[in-house]
């Protein structure tokens, strides 16, 4: 029993964190509302897109315990790219014998997105291939049409996709659980950033002659958010372990991760907005870029109610 990451995993996280902090600034996130985002070449160059592809196919052959912290960092900066879907897709394509696609995705030459049948596909306009997850498995669409649906989170463009697909033989359930875990990880990073913004603001903003962060009412709001985020982290990390080891309880653990991360990040948004006061309620201030991503990702890949149902059937056998 050892509930901690390895030094290599921490180092990878720190490298990605530093790069993203320098490149994916709030101004860049804001710009991605108006024009297509441009971080894919950077992610390719940093090896992030190659994490889960096998070494023979130009990848690093890493697993969920390696990428979960990377996804948290992508969340922290509200990276406006479909990294969740990329992570879900690569191993599925590899399992399905689509070596060429895996190589092209790992190098960043091609882009893919994944969606649940009947739902929206993120960034389908820039995708070379789309994977549709349905009740009977996964399908690969290489010729398809898209319709954009303007979304509240302007940096996460949503589309409906139409087209005929070819069945993929890989494990669609595992791909779904990777997408859910990756989403939970991003939510954790987003929530921590939203809390950090509020903490910094509360130290700088003065009222009644003191920083507002010195008032207990404000402090306790922030601690409530921290508490939720702190206890969500090991739940997300355990889910990564279960994905990496294909644990028999994987579905329960992954659903728990999504519930805890969504609720912690959502609470962090509420508390952060409250601590910021009116300035946080403006379009001009950056907080809403993060909040809208939290709300979008809380809904994506199963909202908390959907995951409660899944967890309950696993727990109570209903």
């Amino acid at each position: 029993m050892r509930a901690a990451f390895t030094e290599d995993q921490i180092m990878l996280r720190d490298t990605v964190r530093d790069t993203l902090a320098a490149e994916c600034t709030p101004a860049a996130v804001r710009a991605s509302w108006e024009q297509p985002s441009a971080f894919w070449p950077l992610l390719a160059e940093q090896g992030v897109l190659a994490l889960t592809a096998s070494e023979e196919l130009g990848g690093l052959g890493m697993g969920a315990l390696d990428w979960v912290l990377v996804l948290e960092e992508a969340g922290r900066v509200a990276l406006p790219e479909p990294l969740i879907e990329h992570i879900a897709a690569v191993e599925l394509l590899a399992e399905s014998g689509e070596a060429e696609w895996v190589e092209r995705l790992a190098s960043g030459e091609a882009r893919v997105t994944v969606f649940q049948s009947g739902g929206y596909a993120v960034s389908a306009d820039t995708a070379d291939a789309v994977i549709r997850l349905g009740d009977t498995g996964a399908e690969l669409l290489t010729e398809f049409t898209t319709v954009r649906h303007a979304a509240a989170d302007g940096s996460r463009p949503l589309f409906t996709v139409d087209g005929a697909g070819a069945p993929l033989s890989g494990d669609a359930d595992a791909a779904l659980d990777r997408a859910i875990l990756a989403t939970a990880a991003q939510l954790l990073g987003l929530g921590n950033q939203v809390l950090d913004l509020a903490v910094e603001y509360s130290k700088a903003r003065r009222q009644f002659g003191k920083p507002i962060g010195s008032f207990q009412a404000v402090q306790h709001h922030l601690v409530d958010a921290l508490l939720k985020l702190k206890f969500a982290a090991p739940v997300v990390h355990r889910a990564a372990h279960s994905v990496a080891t294909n644990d028999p309880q994987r579905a329960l653990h992954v659903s728990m991760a999504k519930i805890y991360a969504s609720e912690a990040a959502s609470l962090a948004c509420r508390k952060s907005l409250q601590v910021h006061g009116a300035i946080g309620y403006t379009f001009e201030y950056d907080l809403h870029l993060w909040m809208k991503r939290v709300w979008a990702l809380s809904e994506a890949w199963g909202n908390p109610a959907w995951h409660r149902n899944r967890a309950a059937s696993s727990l109570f056998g209903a």
Partner: protein
Amino acid sequence: MNLTYTVSEQAFRADCRAWLEANVPATPLASHNTREGFAQHVQWEHKLFDAGWAVVSWPEAYGGRGASLVEWLIFEEEYYRSGAPARVTQNGIFLLAPTLFECGNDEQKERLLRQMARADFLWAQAWSEPNAGSDLASVRATAKKVDGGWKLSGNKTWCSRGVFSDGIYGLFRTDPDSERHRGLTYFMIHVDQPGVTLRAVEDLDGEEAFAEVFLDDVFVPDADVIGEVNQGWKVAMSTTSSERGLSLRSPGRFQATAERLKQLFVESGSPERLRDQVLQSWMDADAYSLYTYQTVTRMQEGGHIGADSSLNKIFWSEMDIATQQTALELLGARAWLMPEAPDAAPGWLHDFLFSLAGPIYAGTNEIQRNIVARRVLELPR
């Protein structure tokens, strides 16, 4: 990260389980907050100690097994899973002992640790005073130096199971000119000494769970001072954020309660309207366990628990109330019957009432939030 147990951890669990299955009393003991029940619990503690299970994480020299923190967590999981009795030694082994390990001298450790672990001498914590609760540094009880020791006077309160205990421990002002955290000394006091008066205070449940303690020129030998004179605050705080934060309420306790709640839910016909509450309690107990394994891993690799002990305390105390409330909702009108009533549902009402004390004792949750705000978020005063 490897969240599977090693072969030796699995063997340790199997040993715990086998002994508990063979030895845990088939019928529950009377409440440990009553005189009759307390005596039964003391007998149980003797048995536990003699078999080497009372204090698994302590060195063998003091009656332990030198178990790792992970093994201690495993023991706790098995202990509560088996439905074994509440620990009447807890204010000794979980609260006083860490202080002795950290700040006590060898003579004190030799003399006190084994006897407290075997329940041959029962300790109660006497930290609060009528005017020093959350503001612990405002204690007024005093100690004056006399030949060979000290004379203690003052008034302590909310001393859990004090009326059934043999000794109490707490802070006394040894420097009369001092204020706040300075000039305090940490004493251990035998309650059979002349000048000690204990008055039982009934808790919300009507049991003599608390004592108010009056001290009038009570003699305490120098040998019963922990740490240095006038350094009592440092001694008291040395363990509040170390093992104490971990050992006060281990995850196994809440996981066992969550399992019982799950059973109660199924026995109650799985009412859909309460499903999410039951699920939440079960998941929260699981999350608390995961968080604790993460903390323990850090501690085993040389780290400190730090302010995590405050986050822990907020989490488990709020989770416990929510869990108990859900149980009462599942039981409906039966929940509010006293234990002697024919239809009573054993345990839940008592446990609900006790859960309400959680956000109050061991530092209120407001104080814990203040600590987290300062130490973790580094917010200004």
